[in-house]
């Protein structure tokens, strides 16, 4: 399943324009600790987090993650979006809490 399909099925708001929406999402990692994502996230994972600051872009790029979903109505900082555009990383936001978004994603990616 690619980023575009996930955004549409989970009613996510795509906040960036330059990311590759056709990029395949191979898994998911959920954490608000950046070192945890660096240690345990896997290439192709979509990352669900509450963090909104620009360092999430650096971590996502370093790990070659497929995209970032910021949950719970949180809004990414302007600098975060600028950095994401420069790196062609897709950032999306979701109104639903992490549990619900993760539950739907699990269904789509694993079932």
């Amino acid at each position, binding site marked *: 399943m690619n980023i575009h399909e996930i955004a549409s099925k989970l009613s996510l708001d795509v906040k960036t324009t330059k990311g590759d929406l056709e990029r395949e999402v191979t898994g998911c990692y959920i954490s608000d600790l*950046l*070192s945890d994502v660096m240690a345990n996230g896997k290439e192709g994972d979509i990352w669900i987090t509450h963090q909104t600051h620009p360092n999430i872009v650096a971590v996502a790029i370093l790990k070659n993650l497929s995209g970032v979903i910021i949950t719970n109505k949180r809004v990414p900082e302007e600098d975060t979006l600028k950095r994401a555009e420069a790196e062609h990383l897709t950032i999306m936001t979701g109104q639903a809490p992490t549990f619900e978004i993760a539950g739907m994603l699990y269904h789509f990616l694993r079932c």
Partner: protein
Amino acid sequence: MIIKNSIEGSFHLTGGDFTNAGIASSELKSILTELGLDDNVIRRAAIATFEAEMNVIIHAIAGTIYYSIMPEHIKIIVNDMGPGIEDIELAMQEGYSTAPDWVREMGWGAGMGLPNMKKNSDEFKIDSVVGEGTTVEIIINIKQGLR
């Protein structure tokens, strides 16, 4: 790709500069990618360097990352002008951190930085003088990793 001569360079880091965090490690990652090194070697070097970079940004006034890419290994030395580490053994324990609350709220300072550096290194050394600074030396073998 066989590296004949060593390739060296450095990056300057400014303490507190969270905006540019990750740029040095990302540049090093690009250099290693261009050299055609094994993905696993690149990944380990990038993670270890990013964690070292973050420690300088979180704790120190300034620091420098020196890298040398040799035929057999990558050596990354990060030294900083910072508070130093009183008890290195304690600092190496996963979960131990002296980072302030606002840094933790950003998702850093979980006490995973030094353990992550060590896990991704083949050789890892750390020296610190309280009140002066810390030097970390990371060696990652690339010999078996050549494509």
